[in-house]
């Protein structure tokens, strides 16, 4: 029974790697990379839920009767593009923080905020 669940475990491992990076890294850019890994793990989760054993890609073809679930594909397809767009907003914010504070390290940012 257990080996059948390996897809979830891969997702969890990836998600935890992303989570760990977000917590531990002080650099805002690295935090964003961690968030991105976290996000991808959710994508993989959805897609793996949509997989049907022996199924084919959800494009109508002759001689194929079992298809993968198209719904998660749709959700994730749009999520990827939205994800890159929001990631761009986040990067833009980081760039402006660098412009205003001269640093993207979390601790230095807090020090400066406290000094003000």
């Amino acid at each position, binding site marked *: 029974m257990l080996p059948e669940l390996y897809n*979830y*475990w891969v997702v*969890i491992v990836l998600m935890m790697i992303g989570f760990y990076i977000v917590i531990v890294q002080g650099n805002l*850019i690295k935090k964003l990379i961690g968030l991105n*890994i976290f996000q991808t793990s959710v994508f993989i989760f959805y897609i793996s839920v949509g997989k049907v054993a022996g199924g084919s890609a959800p494009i109508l073809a002759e001689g194929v009767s079992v298809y993968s679930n198209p719904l998660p594909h749709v959700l994730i397809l749009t999520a990827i*593009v*939205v994800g890159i767009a929001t990631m761009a907003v986040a990067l*833009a914010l980081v*760039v402006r923080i660098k412009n205003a504070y001269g640093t993207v*390290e979390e601790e230095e940012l807090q020090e400066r905020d406290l000094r003000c």
Partner: protein
Amino acid sequence: MLAGIYGLLSASFFVSMDAVDVAFTEAAVGAGVFPLLMLTALTVTGRFEQTAHRRPRAAFFLVLVTGALMILGTLDMPAFGSPDAPAHTHVAARYIQLSPTEIGIPNMVTSVLADYRAFDTLGEVVVVFTAVVGVLILLTSVDQRQRPSPANAVETMRGHMILRVVSKMLIPLILLFALYVQFHGEYGPGGGFQAGVIFAAAIILYAMLFGLAKAEAAIKPSILRLLAAFGVLLYGGVGVVSFLTGVNYLDYSRLAADPVTGRHIGILGIELGVGITVAAAMILIFYAFAGYAAGRAEAE
């Protein structure tokens, strides 16, 4: 670089799990646009980090506990690939059985995206548009003089002769391919989102190799801004037109005499809207970042 490889790897994951449409998008976004954006942002923020990691042991423990709890949670999940998992037994079965006759196009992902869940997709296009507006506000409203220190990595590849010649031959093909993906999305994997990203990747490649100024001269940011808004408008407009034919918003069945043809037209229309918005959005975001990085070099 690693981010690019990661994107490509996850794209191949998706192929192996039969999600060709998703793989397409991930290949273009994960391996193309995302690392480029990262690189441009890194040139602005600096390459090295100074601080040491904070309390990694406590964080590691926290992560380990969370992961263990989640794995505990998966024990009740349906097995990978099992056909009677709850995800496959509700609305998805209907999509698979009825969409070929109701919508009349082979690619179920497109028919779900552009017809059954058209509202959802409209929302996502608006999110992309809003994100562009946000990036533009954040990055282009700054006073040029405030930007300190040098480095302009966006144009560092200008000297590479081979790259330039090869990409000069490749870029038209990439653009052509993007158009193919755009209009073939109903029959094979593809559609507005993928086409938009591929198109944008080609323009961004051009901007990286030949300089931002030349790219902006070829495709003007002011036109792109109009196009980004036009795509959303086109999408919403198709919905309004279907209103006028006497059915619900984004129900295309009466756009033509025959409901299936009507749906076809409607899907083509909104996919075009999606493609235009996504392509314009991605290029604008890159222009904003690259322009910001270049502005710093000028200031010096």
